[in-house]
């Protein structure tokens, strides 16, 4: 570590031992200040993303406790009853999968962007808007500090040329931006 030099500010202590410049102003101040940063799991980070633990938690493969939120509706996460994907030519709605909470210091606007071969078929709705209002992807959600929304998703394959094994959605990027 760089050697720290304190060459001023202790006039009352140092007067007996050192020369005084007599300028009446400080010449040099050096200080070391702590920088501590932790990486938290999604459940306790500044932007909380956490599975609700509700009836549909089987679709949530990582609820954000100890890791990052992950939701899988595919053959790698078949349900206990054998389902491993959504139906073709159908609308599937899954209520209350996860929460988004602002655990920071100021209000934020949360939006999301999706990647995947047919990602437009999967939409995310906040509680109250499901499944008729604007999706979060088209209308960002504003969250004050300590505020949260519970998110449900809808997968609409009606009239779409997708079939067994086709990927719909690969990942979602949440973006929270301070509103002020």
């Amino acid at each position, binding site marked *: 570590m760089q050697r*720290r030099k304190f060459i001023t500010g202790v006039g009352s202590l140092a007067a007996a031992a050192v020369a005084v410049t007599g300028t009446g*102003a400080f010449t040099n101040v050096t200080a070391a200040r*702590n920088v*501590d940063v932790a990486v938290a799991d999604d459940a306790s*980070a500044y932007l909380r993303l956490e599975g609700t633990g509700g009836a549909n938690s089987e679709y949530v493969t990582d609820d954000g406790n100890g890791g990052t939120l992950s939701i899988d509706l595919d053959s790698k996460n078949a349900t206990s009853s054998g389902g491993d994907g959504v139906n073709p030519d159908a609308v599937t709605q899954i209520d209350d999968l996860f929460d988004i909470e602002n655990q920071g210091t*100021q209000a934020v606007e949360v939006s999301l962007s999706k990647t995947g071969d047919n990602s437009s078929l999967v939409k995310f709705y906040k509680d109250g808007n499901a499944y008729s209002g604007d999706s979060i992807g088209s209308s960002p959600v504003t969250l004050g500090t300590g505020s949260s929304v519970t998110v449900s998703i809808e997968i609409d394959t009606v009239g779409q040329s997708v079939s067994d094994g086709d990927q719909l959605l690969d990942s979602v990027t949440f973006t929270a931006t301070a509103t002020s």
Partner: protein
Amino acid sequence: MNRRRFVLGLGALAGGGAATVGTGAFSSVEAQRNISVTVSDDANAQLGIQPTDEPSGNYVDTTPNDALAIDLTASNNNVGSGIAGGEGLNANAITEIADVFEIRNQGAQTVEVTATPLAYLETDSGAVAVLLVPQNAPDLFGFGVFYPTDGITIKELDPGDDIRFGLIGLPLSESAIDSAGISDELAISAEAV
């Protein structure tokens, strides 16, 4: 809100005449600091190192001896008040926080301020990088983007002026959760020019 201002008082006692030592040898840095640091003594402190009065100032806490500390962990005393429960950076995410802390020349003469380093990296268990960003550096320098990772020097910080810092956090992998973190120091020095 728990709005405290902490200023570094190392220069505060120098009013009677600044002292210089040629060798730099001293027996106890801590003792000097304990005597010199004062709380809310803005009137006399020469170099103010303090959180901003913006919401992001809550990411700054203090050490037990009232020194400023950038603290994005569960240990920050503002968690639950100024910080709504968050205990760290999200993994696999980019977090940008503006207006975290500032260094203000509260003395009577222009000083050269150095802050180092500005880049922190932890790679032992997962990876996380944190960059301190001098937000108003272009104003102070008079030219555009300038980002030295080893440290920044403001050649002339006039009395009453401040340099304000934000930060960018980049946890690079999920394995960093609850393992990788930054526990380091920022060295700040000011010297009359």
